[in-house]
């Protein structure tokens, strides 16, 4: 799968961007040239040799804050996606097997979650459980989980009705065996696509929540928080929001690109794509030889 994604230009771009973002998340806080929390008297300064992206309203180094904030931002969106995966995909798979009552209940629950406005819900829950990035992310994860639920359920249903599952049943296989042996591998690719997409969504959510001041306690830096504070001083530094906004956009775009690439290379669509390329290659070769 990974090799096939890499054969697509869009897949390569997405993976490279995401690799850079991942490196930022791991080493960013260590690379920061200044202490991201240290204030100075140099308020709202423009870019310079010591402050590459200038300073903010409290005189903190923006570049350092971006680097330091990358870890929380990335971790936060991963938390959202992981939570959604666990809360959505597993019930989605077992809803096909655990009988009508569970199926009905889980379906209605998924519908309910879809209907809830997530920002409002996140605000309410953080008010209840305390304002922390983890609480906020877990709540968001639960709220986007219906997508995983539906994707996993649809994929499982097509496998569950297949003859090879019936063949395994006739051989005396248990439910656990069937899920481990036959269902899991087939459900994984669509879930992976959903996962990549959700990481993108997670970024937007983390950014918008921290933009609203939910989830992250100041002065801890995040990309969304940076964007929010930069917007407050737009008249002094009109260019400042570009850096955090660009990072957020780039990451979300890369995640969606990866999701698209994954969808393109798996299944029927993947085969059609590869065939079309071969024809083109043959025609080019034929044209060259004439």
């Amino acid at each position, binding site marked *: 799968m990974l090799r096939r994604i890499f054969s697509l230009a869009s897949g390569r771009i997405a993976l490279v961007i995401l690799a850079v973002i991942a490196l930022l998340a791991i080493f960013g806080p260590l690379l920061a040239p200044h202490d991201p929390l240290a204030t100075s008297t140099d308020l709202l300064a423009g870019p310079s040799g010591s402050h590459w992206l200038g300073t903010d309203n409290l005189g903190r180094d923006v570049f350092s804050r971006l680097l330091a904030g990358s870890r929380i931002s990335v971790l936060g969106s991963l938390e959202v996606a992981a939570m959604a995966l666990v809360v959505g995909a597993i019930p989605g798979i077992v809803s096909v097997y655990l009988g009508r009552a569970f199926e009905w209940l889980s379906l209605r629950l998924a519908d309910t979650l879809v209907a809830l406005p997530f920002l409002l819900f996140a605000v309410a829950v953080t008010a209840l459980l305390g304002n922390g990035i983890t609480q906020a992310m877990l709540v968001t994860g639960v709220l986007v989980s219906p997508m995983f639920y539906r994707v996993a359920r649809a994929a499982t249903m097509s496998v569950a009705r297949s003859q090879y599952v019936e063949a395994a049943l006739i*051989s*005396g296989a248990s439910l656990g065996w069937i899920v481990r042996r036959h269902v899991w591998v087939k459900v994984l690719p669509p879930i992976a696509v959903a996962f990549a997409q959700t990481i993108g969504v997670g970024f937007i959510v983390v950014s918008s929540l921290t933009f609203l001041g939910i989830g992250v306690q100041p002065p801890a830096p995040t990309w969304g928080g940076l964007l929010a504070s930069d917007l407050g001083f737009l008249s002094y530094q009109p260019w400042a929001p570009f850096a955090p906004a660009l990072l957020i956009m780039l990451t979300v775009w890369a995640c969606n690109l990866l999701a698209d690439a994954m969808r393109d290379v798996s299944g029927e669509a993947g085969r059609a794509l590869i065939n079309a390329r071969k024809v083109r290659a043959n025609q080019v070769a034929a044209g060259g030889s004439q």
Partner: protein
Amino acid sequence: MILEVSDLDVHYGQRRRKRRALAGASLSVAPGEIVGLIGETGSGKSTLARAVLGLVRPSAGRIVVDGEDVTGYRTGQWRSLRRRGVIQYVFQDPLRSLDPELSIEDSLSEPLVVGGMSRAEAAKRVRTYLARVRLEEELLGRLPGELSGGQRQRVAVARALVTEPKLVILDEPVSALDSANRVQILEIVKELRATGVAFVFISHDLGSVAGIADRIAVLYQGELVETGPAREVVTEPSHAYTRLLVSSAPTLSTASAGRAEREALRALLNA
């Protein structure tokens, strides 16, 4: 007898929408016997097979498998019976009945591993039966999609044989195959019959079963309308539906029964 089905009734649906799929079907299969079960869409042939495999619950009648009355078996009892591998089933379309993401070796050893056999022993058994269906060992690492249709069906047959069953139910096993592969599968079946394995050969086409079955049973609208030795059923069919089947089966003989006879039989059956 390896299989004894007596007065089997199967209903689908509930209460007012209840529909009878099988009515009073009785069939027995002796070791080393090939029984052709003929019926068209909706005749109940698949229902009969599914009842014998414990996939649908009969509403009346009795099913005895290898001396064991399985009629009222619960899920757990069925599972332990299946794990002994006494009855096996071969689906019509091997491409769909083999997991596309599992190697041939994994697919073949599945019934053995599920039944509790060690991987090493299962690997040995798999190789024995692979040779029995005339396939090379190097296919074991491949995926079903990388095999030809004939090879796939032989894998499906081998999969049914690895547990050394006493009865194999084959559902239209050759209708998706070309001539050469069809003949090969039928020859394998004949060889195995000689070792005492019994077969139920399900098909909608009397012609495709006539040459290999010892006995033929004809299902029509949920009822067994005719059962007898193959030659008798083909040459002297007693029921009008069997006569229509014989007359409809394509044959190479250009002097076969014609349109007028079929027309008359259809009118008779619809009356």
